[in-house]
């Protein structure tokens, strides 16, 4: 087993050089969030993750959460770890300062989130969902509701969940059936919700469920869904915990991955009806849910990143110690560790390059979200909001797809042992697998990217990003002859992205089906090229910094080589996806359902 170590150097490089941490620190309210403070936060989070969360990751996977008599017990050690986690104040990192949070920028919480996900994805889903609930309450709940629920949720004494899915209502939430009937100052809810992550457990004193349900006579479809606060224990007016609400965990799922986290089936209102409190107005529930969508989707993208980093560290540790065979071309002499073999190096580099590209893209998107929220200049706000809107489905869709691929390569680096659970490599692959599915599948992200983002605004933001990419590519010239093939690969990849984008803008209105048939290849294309964009920026900056004698030359030259590898090995695949976008929809549409 390897030990997780937060990649602080790369995180600091990305935060400072690519995501513009200094600019974010200069925004109103964040003057104290200096790079030095952020370094200290990341170092302490890294230490906590390494010593407390990482050692529990395997236990969570092998033991899993357990259900007995309606009570869910978290895996051994999780309750104590959660207590340490909230005592150390990590739960309130991005929380509202009025309710005890630290109010740190999203770009900082994204970096910390990566650390938690690398160390123990199952565990950190609990605080992640709590922060989702807090986000919803902050935007839409009444001041009384905020005062009643937000302090304990911010502290982590209470945790939160999202209750959207029902057996017949998955990606299509218009089919939600859970009923909410008005009963005085509250509602009574009846129905079944499934796939509720950390829906019941013994880590927190109370669980605040946010539940989508229909009131009687609500309009059909998405315009008839309301959002309710349904606490596990009712909360008295003075904030103390009251009696148990009518919610039962009837089963927990047997899953492929994230087994340390209970995924619950919750039955609401089997006796008297579960007491719930309406958030905002009736029938506007889905709209409220959507306001935190960027936040939640970026968060899942960061899960893909976190797992990729952890799988890479695990594979690297194995490749450095596993002795097998001699160097190619040597018939005698000592046997070597497998990292000496070019193909193993190639696999490790592909893991490293993709992970670093994902990190850079996710942090850049998070910083844009911060600027979109609080930048004093309205134009900057709008520009950054457009960038976040465009990048969100890419970070969610592409970082999770790559997370699966990187974790799979991690298994491959282990050879036969990778297929054996004891090696630990398989868990990362199994854990990563959910990330391309929940919070909107890759297909849903791709439709969002193609329809609501690119086609809707006639490719304006996408073209602006493509223009920036060309500027970065021009700056690569200073890296000299070694970068000629990388520059060419980047330049052609940008051309591919541009032609695919133009095709979509042109054809979307007339044939949305054709666009949808190649939406995922387009998302992957955009992800690959956007990854190349941030890696190329990194290479240019690393090159410029190398002339400073005090710089970390080993790190910077590795960054340059990694960026070059990314261009030569990964960007070269862009063309294939573009060709599929330009010509691949007809075959998808041609085959009749009956012909399958």
């Amino acid at each position, binding site marked *: 087993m390897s*030990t997780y*170590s937060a990649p*602080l*150097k790369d995180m600091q490089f990305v935060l400072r050089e690519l995501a513009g941490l200094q600019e974010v620190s200069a925004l109103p309210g964040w003057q*104290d969030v*200096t790079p*030095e*403070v952020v*370094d*200290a*936060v990341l*170092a*302490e989070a890294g*230490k*906590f993750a*390494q010593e*407390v969360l990482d050692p529990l990751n395997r236990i969570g996977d092998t033991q899993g959460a357990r259900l007995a008599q309606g009570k869910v017990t978290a895996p051994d050690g999780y309750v104590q770890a959660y207590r*340490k986690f909230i*005592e*150390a*104040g*990590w739960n*309130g*990192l991005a929380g509202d300062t009025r309710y005890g949070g*630290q109010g740190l920028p999203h770009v900082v919480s994204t970096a910390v989130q990566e650390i938690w996900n690398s160390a123990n994805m199952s565990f950190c889903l609990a605080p992640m969902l709590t922060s989702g609930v807090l986000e919803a309450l902050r935007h839409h709940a009444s001041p009384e509701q905020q005062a009643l629920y937000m302090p304990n949720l911010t502290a982590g004494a209470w945790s939160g969940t999202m209750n959207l899915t029902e057996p017949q209502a998955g990606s299509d939430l218009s089919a939600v059936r859970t009923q909410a009937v008005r009963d005085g100052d509250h509602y009574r809810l009846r129905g079944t919700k499934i796939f509720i992550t950390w829906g019941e457990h013994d880590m927190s004193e109370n669980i605040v469920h946010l539940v989508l349900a229909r009131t009687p006579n609500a309009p059909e479809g998405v315009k008839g869904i309301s959002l309710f606060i349904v606490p596990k224990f009712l909360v008295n007016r003075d904030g103390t915990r009251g009696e148990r609400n009518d919610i039962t965990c009837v089963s927990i799922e047997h899953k492929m991955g994230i087994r340390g986290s209970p995924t619950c089936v919750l039955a609401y209102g089997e006796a008297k009806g579960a007491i719930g409190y309406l958030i905002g107005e009736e029938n506007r529930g889905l709209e409220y849910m959507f306001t935190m969508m960027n936040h939640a989707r970026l968060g899942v993208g960061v899960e893909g990143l976190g797992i990729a980093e952890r799988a890479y560290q695990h594979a690297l540790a194995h490749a450095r110690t596993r002795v097998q065979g001699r160097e190619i071309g040597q018939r005698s002499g000592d046997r070597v560790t497998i990292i000496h073999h070019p193909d193993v190096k190639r696999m490790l580099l592909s893991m490293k390059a993709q992970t670093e590209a994902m990190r850079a893209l996710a942090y850049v998107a998070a910083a844009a979200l911060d600027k979109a929220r609080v930048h004093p200049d309205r134009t900057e706000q709008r520009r950054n909001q457009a960038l976040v809107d465009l990048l969100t489905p890419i970070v969610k869709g592409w970082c999770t797809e790559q997370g699966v691929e990187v974790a799979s390569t991690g298994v491959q680096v282990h050879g036969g042992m990778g297929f054996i659970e004891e090696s630990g490599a398989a868990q990362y692959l199994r854990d990563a697998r959910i990330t391309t599915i929940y919070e909107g599948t890759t297909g849903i992200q791709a439709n969002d990217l193609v329809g609501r983002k690119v086609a809707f605004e006639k490719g304006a933001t996408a073209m602006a990003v493509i223009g920036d990419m060309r500027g970065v590519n021009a700056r690569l010239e200073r890296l000299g002859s070694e970068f000629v093939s990388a520059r060419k690969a980047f330049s052609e990849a940008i051309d591919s992205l541009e032609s695919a984008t133009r095709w979509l803008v042109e054809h979307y209105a007339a044939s949305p089906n054709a666009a949808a048939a190649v939406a995922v290849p387009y998302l992957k294309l955009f992800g690959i090229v956007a990854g190349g964009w941030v890696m190329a920026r990194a290479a240019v900056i690393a090159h410029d910094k190398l002339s400073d004698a005090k710089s*970390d030359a*080993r*790190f910077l030259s590795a960054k340059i080589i990694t960026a070059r590898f990314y261009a030569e090995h990964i960007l070269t695949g862009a063309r294939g996806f573009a060709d599929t976008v330009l010509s691949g929809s007809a075959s998808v549409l041609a085959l009749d359902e009956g012909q399958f």
Partner: protein
Amino acid sequence: MKVLVTVKRVIDPYVKVRVKSDGSGVETANIKMTMNPFCEIAVEQAVRMKEAGIVTEIVVVSVGVPQSQETLRTAMAMGADRGILVDAPAGVEPLAVAKLVKAIIEKEKPQLVITGKQAIDDDSNQTGQMIAALMGWPQATFISNVTVNGDSAEVTREIDGGLEKLTIKLPAVVTSDLRLNEPRYVTLPNIMKAKKKPLEVLKPEALGVDVTPRLKTLKVQEPPSRSAGVKVADVKELIAKLKNEARII
């Protein structure tokens, strides 16, 4: 009462230490650094004594390169009240450190000085003892417990073959052993607050101490790697090997 705690910035214990190619020392440039674990225990002890109402102020002192300010900030995030860095070149030796700390003690007048028993980089295990000697104060090294009673302290020392309980008169110097306590995790709100706590940076000259090294490092090299083990056929062969090859019986 006031407590003074010393802290040292060292290579992170999880990092694999590499010898510099010229054999002049080990690589420290661009390597992850952290607070010496024994110093962390020393800070934790002071913070617990403050929480228990025995200590009113905790001053942390570090002697080292400018980046040692990060180590002092960590100590302040743990609960120390203010920090003093004596900006000295890397490789400053225990005697020089002890003299610098003595100069600060004379200014700060603490009742108790807590140091780590040793730093995990050089393992010198000298600074605490030297501070006590230079001050002419009682010392108790390798402590696993300390209780202050007015102007004296009861301490438990971890010694070969058991524990030794002593009463020492204050002011005194104690050095922390591993079992004194388990340091807390720094909390996020305290990391944010630590930034605002005062941190003073001094030069050795200002304290009238010459930090010129007295020792010369001739060569630093990796320890020899362990050779592979062998399987013995029976007890007889084992005993023969222990007698003739290992020469331990």
